[in-house]
Each structure stands twice: as C-alpha cells, then as structure tokens.
C-alpha cells in the first residue's frame, strides 16, 4: 500500500488560491457579523434589559404598550401606513399598467419621471407640502379646511416617497406576463373587462402584494416626513427618535425598534415568497405581451400619467421655487441667500461636503466589498457552510429598516467597553452604516451579474495555473463593469438621500446634508431647508448623468466585445 490506502478519504491539498479565498471569505463574514449581526443583537438584548443592564424580560414591552402616549403611536403608524400603501399601490398599478400595457406616447419618459423621487431625501415632499398646503400655502383651499400638519400631510408625503418603489415592482410584475394567455383569452371570447380580471389580475397579484408590503414597511419606518409635517401626530418612527435622541431612553428606543422590525420582516418574507412564485409564472416559451393600439384607452391612461407626473414634478418645483424666493409667498424676489447655509442654525456647506464625502466613500468601499463578497459567495467552490452563512448575512439588511439599524448602531458603538467604540462619531461609522443599510440590493445586483457569467472561468484559470485574483481582475471585473457602475450609483444616491439611520450617528464634525435639512426645518429655517434638499437633488441628478456618460465610455472601452 502506498501513501493513501484504498478506501481512505482523499484529503485535497489546498492551493494558494484556496487559502486566499478562505481568508477573504472569513474577512467578509467577520465584517458582516460585526457590522450587521452584532449591532442587531445588541438592540435585541437592550429591549429586554433595564437601564443598568439587568434582564427584565418583557417588562419594557408591557411598559410601552401600557403608556397611552406611546401605544397610540402604534395605531397611528398602522393607519398612516395602510392608507399610504393602499393609495400608492393603486396609483402605481394604473401607472405601471399604462407604461407596460398601452401604446400611449412617451412611455419611457413617464417611467423615468416616476423614479424621480428616488433622487430626493424623504424630507423634500414634507417641505414642499408645507409650502403648497401649509398655513400660507399656495393651494391650501384644496384641503377644504383640513390641516396639512398631521395624517393628511404624512400620507401625501409618503405616497410621493414610496411611489417609485411600487412602480418598479409592478412594472416588473406586469412585464413578465405571458402574451399567449391574452391570445388564448381572446380566442375564448373574453371581453376586455373579463380579460383584465381573469388574466391580468391573477398574474400580477403577487406583484401587488409585494408592492403593498414594501410600501407599508417604508412608511412605517420612515422618519423624515412625519418629523417635518406630522405636527403633534406621533408615529412609531418619530417615537424612536424622541426616546433615543431626545430622552436618552435606550430601552424604550430598543422596544420601538424591535416593533418596527416586525412589518419589515413580514414584508421581507412576503417578497421572497413572491419572487419564487413570479419566476414560475414565466415559462421559457412565454412570449412578451405587446399592447395593441386603442386610442380611447391610451388617451385616458396618458391623462392619468400626466397628472401623476405633474404632481411629482410640482413637489420638486415647489421646493426649488421656495429655495430661490426671498420670502414665500409675500416677497417673490429671486435671491441666492437661502443657499448660504452658513448663516442658518441647522446646517452649513460643510454638511453638504460631508455628505458628498460620505456618499463617495460609501460608493467606493461599498461597491468593492459588495462585489468581492458576491464573487466569493457565487464563484468559489468549497467552504460550503461558510458561504451559506455569508449568503444569509448578506440578506439581513433587506429586512432591517434604516431607523432600526441606526438605533442598533448607537447601542453597539456607544459602549465604551467595545473596542470599536473608537468609530463612534467618526465619518467611518456613517460610511459603514450606510453600506450595511443598502447592502442587500447591491449584493443581489452583483449576484445577478455574476450568475450570467460562465461558471467555468475559475476552473479554466486554475488549470492554466493563473492565480484566481488575476482572472478576477482581468476578466470578472471588466465583464461585470456595467453592474459595478450600477451598484456604485445606487450606493451613492442612497447615501446622499438617506436620513433614517444616519440621524442617530452623526456628530458635530460629521453633519450631513440630509440631516441638515431636518435640523434647519426644525429650527424654522424652512427655505434654507428646501435649498439644501434641492442641493441633494441637484447632486443626485448630476451623478446620475455622470453615471450615464461614464457607463457609455467604459462600455465603449471594456465591452467592445459586446458589439458583434
């Protein structure tokens, strides 16, 4: 018998590549554990502790539920979220239906307009609504005596803020319907209405459910709009802020955070389920549905889309106007002074540059970590268990609202005993938190791009004895470049506009533009707040355009092979 006896398990000798990959995988896993799992664990344990760290079971929860002022927030939050979800989903459905199922002109433009709110912080609709319907509002008579400060304002703002998310989900759901079903229905003599209810609705019902839950979660966990326009109307999201930032009551903050996690987890579960069902709907032989021309219908949906887009645009226009006008509505002289943020209490140009820095760092480091992580999970063999763990950790952020993550971060990093306490109040913690917050969507984008690549590149490279990182650099990254650019754009814009997590984490040296909007508005400097919100919008638009130009240039250079 020689070295290995027959029947004895072969123990593969690991290559240098193998060890390098293992190290990288362990590193990614450690980062995700430290910056996602541990903070959430701290939040969980805080909600079961008293102020001195002793275990008190459910005492905090029962205290919360029996304090009328606090528990009323639950019912408020639910009402707002149900109303907003219902309105947004309905509007978005008709809008998405028009884009995908009609022959109305300018469909691409309307699709682009629907996505505009993604480029603004959620505070912007709050501010614009005040200008439009507030005490001195332009069209306040439209409310027929009702006040915009409170549920009405919140719901209107939330509809604006969540509209693009719902439209994206429903456009996807509507575009994957099999055109053959309609032909079949027609042959069977089904009328338009009958077709709609027997073919369209069943096919998109998963999309509708998913959109509803996503909007619901966004609304329940959004903090900007209720803060700006909510008046005395308390919701869960503003409660967290008050408990944690206002009263330093971490236990109560943790309880609300845990409660906010519930709808998000539910939405996440529903979304996963829906995705699985939706994939099954489209068989390989399905044909895309091509809408027929129908002048009456096309005109009706065109009118609808025009009204909705106008409403969206008017929110931007209102904020832009307010930022340039001396004193709305009394003195309409055009001035620059609202952009001189250094004169206000709540913010400064430094905040804006901080935001740019934070977003750029998030885009650069976030994209690098996300893409490397996705590559390790998707393209390496071996370490099955570890890869499974990393994959799971990558999905967690999707189920955690920014607000909850922000609170979890404070609890975790404020602790002097934590060696990572040095990060507290630094720019780094803002960057890390933002990457963690938006990790899942970025990860899934990278995974999709990697899945489209041939699965044997790594095997070819190993058999040619080329180190794996060389193939990663020379082949994987260039081929995935379009996705990499998309990920960095997504991270940059998200970092620019986010408020919910970072509002707990900034320090006097690291104030951010979005937080400055909040603080200026709070201090009564509403016009400068509008100006700062618009600065964020301008930046996002500029970056979006730069992304388009850059993508084209990079595509021309590295993807010449795509042209045949």
């Amino acid at each position: 018998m020689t070295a290995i006896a027959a029947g004895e398990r072969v123990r593969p000798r690991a290559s240098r590549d193998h060890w390098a990959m293992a190290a990288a995988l362990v590193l990614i896993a450690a980062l995700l554990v430290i910056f996602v799992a541990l903070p959430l664990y701290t939040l969980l344990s805080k909600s079961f502790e008293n102020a001195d760290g002793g275990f008190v079971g459910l005492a905090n929860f029962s205290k919360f539920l029996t304090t009328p002022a606090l528990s009323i927030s639950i019912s408020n939050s639910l009402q707002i979220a149900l109303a907003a979800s219902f309105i947004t989903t309905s509007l978005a459905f008709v809008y998405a239906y028009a884009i995908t199922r009609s022959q109305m002109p300018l469909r691409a433009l309307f699709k682009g307009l629907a996505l505009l709110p993604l480029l603004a912080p959620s505070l912007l609709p709050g501010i614009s609504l005040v200008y439009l319907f507030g005490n001195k509002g332009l069209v306040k008579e439209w409310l027929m005596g009702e006040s915009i400060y409170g549920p009405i304002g919140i719901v209107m703002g939330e509809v604006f803020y969540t509209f693009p998310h719902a439209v994206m989900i429903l456009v996807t759901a509507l575009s994957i319907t099999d055109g053959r079903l309609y032909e079949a229905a027609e042959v069977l003599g089904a009328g338009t209405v009958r077709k709609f209810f027997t073919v369209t609705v069943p096919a998109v019902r998963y999309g509708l459910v998913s959109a509803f839950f996503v909007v619901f979660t966004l609304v329940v966990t959004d903090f900007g709009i209720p803060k700006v326009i909510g008046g005395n109307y308390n919701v869960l999201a503003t409660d967290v802020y008050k408990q944690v930032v206002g009263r330093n009551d971490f236990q109560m903050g943790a309880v609300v955070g845990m409660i906010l996690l519930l709808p998000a987890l539910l939405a996440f579960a529903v979304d996963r389920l829906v995705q699985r069902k939706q994939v099954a709907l489209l068989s390989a032989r399905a044909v895309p549905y091509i809408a027929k021309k129908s002048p009456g219908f096309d005109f009706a949906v065109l009118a609808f889309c025009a009204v909705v887009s106008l409403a969206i645009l008017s929110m931007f226009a209102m904020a832009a106007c307010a930022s340039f006008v001396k004193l709305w509505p009394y003195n309409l002289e055009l001035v620059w002074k609202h952009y001189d943020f250094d004169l206000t209490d709540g913010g400064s140009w430094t905040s804006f540059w901080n935001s740019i820095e934070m977003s750029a760092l998030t885009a650069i480091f976030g994209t690098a970590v996300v893409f490397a992580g996705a590559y390790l999970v998707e393209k390496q063999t071996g370490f099955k268990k570890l890869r499974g763990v990393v994959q799971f950790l990558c999905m967690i952020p999707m189920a955690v609202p920014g607000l909850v993550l922000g609170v979890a971060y404070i609890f975790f990093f404020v602790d002097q005993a934590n060696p990572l306490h040095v990060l507290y109040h630094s720019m780094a913690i803002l960057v890390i938190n933002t990457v963690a917050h938006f990790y899942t969507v970025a990860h899934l984008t990278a995974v999709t791009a990697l899945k489209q690549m041939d699965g044997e590149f790594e095997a070819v490279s190993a058999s040619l004895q080329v180190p794996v990182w060389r193939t990663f650099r020379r082949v994987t990254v260039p081929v995935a470049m379009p996705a990499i650019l998309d990920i960095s754009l997504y991270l940059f814009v998200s970092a620019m506009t986010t408020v919910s997590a970072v509002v707990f984490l900034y320090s006097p040296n690291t104030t951010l533009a979005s937080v400055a909007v909040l603080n200026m508005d709070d201090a009564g400097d509403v016009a400068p707040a509008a100006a700062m919100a618009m600065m964020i919008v301008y930046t996002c638009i500029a970056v979006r355009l730069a992304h388009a130009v850059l993508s084209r240039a990079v595509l021309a250079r590295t993807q010449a092979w795509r042209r045949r």
Partner: protein
Amino acid sequence: MAHGADRKKPYLRIEGVNKSFGSFHALKNVTLDIAEREFVCFLGPSGCGKTTLLRAIAGLDIQTTGRIFQAGRDVSALPPSARDVGIVFQSYALFPNLSVIDNVGYGLARRSTTRESRRGRVAELLALVNLGEHGAKYPAQLSGGQQQRVALARALATSPGLLLLDEPLSALDAKVRQYLRGELRALQRKLGVTTVMVTHDQEEALTMADRIVVMNAGAIEQVGTPAEIYGTPSTAFVADFIGAMNFLPASVSGAGRARIEGLELHVPALNGTVMGTEITLCCRPEDIVPADDGAANAFDTKISAIEFLGPNLRATLVPKDAASRSLTAEFSATQSRRIGIALGGTLRVAMPGDRLHVFARR
C-alpha cells in the same frame, strides 16, 4: 483487458476512484489505465458520471476515495494548478472581454519570459487550429466551431501532458461536428498529447477513439477499442447502448444450443452453460443475412415492415417458428433488390453462430 496489460507503463492510472455527492454515489470504484499518446473516450448516457470522472482527473472536484497517478506521480490530492492538464469545457468558457490572442495566451503570461516568445507561441497555436487571421477578434465574433478551436488552442498553449475535453463538439451543428472530429483527431496525433474526451455520442466515440470506456450509472461497463466494443460487447448494457441490437429471450436447450420458442439455434458461445438457463441472445441487424438452403442457423421469416434508409433497407422480420418475436435486419439496397424484399413476403435468413452474443437474463 489483454489489450491494456501488454502496453508499457500507463501515463494515467486511475485506481479505485469513488465520488459521492452527499448520499449519491456518482462514481463507483473506477479503475482504468491510459497509455501515453492515447486518445480515450468516456462514453455513456447523460448523468452516468463522465464529467465527474473528468473533473476528478483535472483536480477540479477531487474524488472521495481512490488514487490517480499521472506520469508516475500521485496527483490524487493536488489542486488543478499543481497538475499538468489542459481542459476544454462544454461551454468553452472563453473570456468574452479578451481577444482571441489574449485568450490563447492567457496561461502563458507567467511562463514565457519574453513578450516575443509569448507572441510567437500564440501565433503558432492559432496556425495549428487554422485561426491565423482571427487573432484580433473577440469570441462573440466567431462561429461556434471557431470558438471551440480557440478553447482548444488555449488549453494546449502551456503544452500540458494531458488534454481533457468535455463534450467539445456537442454544441455544434452536425456538419461542423463531423468536420471537427477529423481535425481534432489529426491534431491530437500530430502533437501526441494523451487525450481524454467525454461524449454521449457513440458515433463520435467510435470514429475518434483509440479506446472507449463505456460507463453506466457511475461504473465502467467495458473498456476496449471501437471494434471490440462494437463487435464483442461484454454486457447487455453495452450491447444495447452501442449501435442497434436485437434482444431475444431464449433458454439453453443443449450443448451449445439455445431455443427461442420453436426455433433452435447453434450458439458456440454457450458451451458449458447448464441446460434450461434463461439467457438473452443478441444479434446486430447487419449480422442477419439472407440464407442459402444449407446454411447453419437458417430459418424462415415473414416480412412485417420495411423502412427505406437510403443506402440501406431495414426490415422487420417475424420468424415462422417464433411468431411472437420480431427481428430487425438491415440489408444493403443492392442486396435487397437481388433477393426481392417485399412487405408481407417471406425470407429465409440466418444468424451465424459466431455473430451471436449471450448475456445472462436479468
């Protein structure tokens, strides 16, 4: 196999290799020797473990137990980068963002010292696979057959001792496939590189291989030259899988004799088998011949169906003495004209004893 034993020391030796995926046993005790410069085909139905065995040889998915030696070296546990193999994958896995030249030269970057020698080697390889003028193109600009040759050149660039091909021709259309078979085989002869090719296409294996390894459900059924595999299949599976074959249930009726219903045949292969044993008799359609009166194993049949195949004619024959059985026979067009084959007519045929194969009844 006597054939393998009198060869010199094998270049590749596979010894008792097993591979399991969880509880699924994908390779079962595979033992095989491959000589230097040999062209060996792994042939078997889809899912029988051909790719799994190939990947074990390459070190991509190392076997659970058993050993593999290459050129006398125990490579059982080594990663692909420490072995001496070139691989062409079923998908070719060409790098889409690199030109043909860069694809072919991909494995050379570290090896050839100078840029000039590298460029020279790539040019040489491209000439070898007849792609000299396509070097600047990207893979997407090439036809399937050209892509296949780029993948081949890339695998050969580092002059590996062993070339592994996983269904290299299966993605191509029939004409190109036919042409590339010859090209590939000629190239392999010229370079003298030991080659293992996986295929599920028996015609491909029969026309290209020095030796064929027929696999079924993770195990080797038979190893032999194409003529051996076709002419003397050693198991019913091989008999059935390779070419067309008539399967006839029979029982041993005497020394070297077997009976199919009322029909008794002389079967030399049966000597020594116990009377009454249930067996399966096999005969290829082309081995059923029109019989003269005195021929051995001759019997009368009725022609129940005729199929025109171009150069050949396929007839379904029902023996008069075994009316519940039917046989498929193939005759050349000229032959069938001479003997006058017509639907519903009768024909006297013979199954020569030395062309009959015997398998135990399962």
